[in-house]
């Protein structure tokens, strides 16, 4: 089966995120005063072949740990899609 993983990588809460702070400033300047915090991360889409959704999840998890995210500075999570189904 074919699956698609939508991976979101974000800076860890303890890591200073100057991009996020700058975007927050921009939003405040535009009048969005309700904004409390902004963190800027990355979105990565991975299409893959797998026997089962369980296997796909394990493989994507391994990809994130080994390359897509740097555990020192980043957190990650992902959603998996398969033939219209959605699994978190």
């Amino acid at each position, binding site marked *: 089966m074919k699956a698609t993983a939508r991976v979101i990588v974000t800076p860890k809460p303890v*890591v200073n995120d*100057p991009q996020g702070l700058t975007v927050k400033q921009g939003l405040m300047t535009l009048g969005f005063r309700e904004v409390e915090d902004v963190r800027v991360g990355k979105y990565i889409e991975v299409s893959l072949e797998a026997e089962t959704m369980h296997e796909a999840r394990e493989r994507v998890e391994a990809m994130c740990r080994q*390359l897509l995210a*740097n555990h*020192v500075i980043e957190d990650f999570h992902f959603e998996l899609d398969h033939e219209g189904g959605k699994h978190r």
Partner: protein
Amino acid sequence: MKFGVVVFPGTWSDRDCGWVVDQVVGAQLQYLWHKDADLKGCDCVILPGGFAYGDYLRTGAIARFAPVMESIGEFADRGGLVWGICNGFQILCEAGLLPGALIRNSSLEFRCEWTHLMVERKDLPFTSACSEREVIRMPISHGEGSYFAEPAVLSRLEQNGQVVFRYCDPGGRVLPSANPNGSLHNIAGIINKRGNVLGMMPHPERCSEPELGGADGVKLFRSVAGNAMKVLVS
């Protein structure tokens, strides 16, 4: 003494490093192509600055999978001297040869300017030609040079004396105003616990001749060249 200078696609300081090794210090020079796992008998391997593999995904993230990196890991395990400068430092962190990571400068700007560095260790093969707590002047040139490590790692680095260079003012005071990129503890360069893998953001190869506005960088190259005989590679 034979220096190896690694060349990745996107490396740009390889010729500058090569020039200092070959023309200024007069040591043997060998360029090492990233696809070639053979380190060709080098005593010290330099990972120079630039944008290896375009810095795609994260700085150094893809470079660490190059065939040459596996050999460099084994070389470091045997006690060989590995020296990452700028992008090379980022690669060493991604490869897990040094702790922590280099993130976006707190200013969000690419900074290309002179800095002052406090040399906190002079008992290393890389710094033995410096004096005790010498302040040296060296340029930086990076957008992602802000050193980060989690608090436990940071305090271990400090306890072990693994911080080699710290951004300071011309008088040697380590102040927030002397920190060009937001690095924690003003860290500009660190060494592994064993003392044979050095990573630093500033560029010694760009200040190794007076014509370039300063020659403090050559002290590091001369340190390595002079210490080669004492380094035991098992």
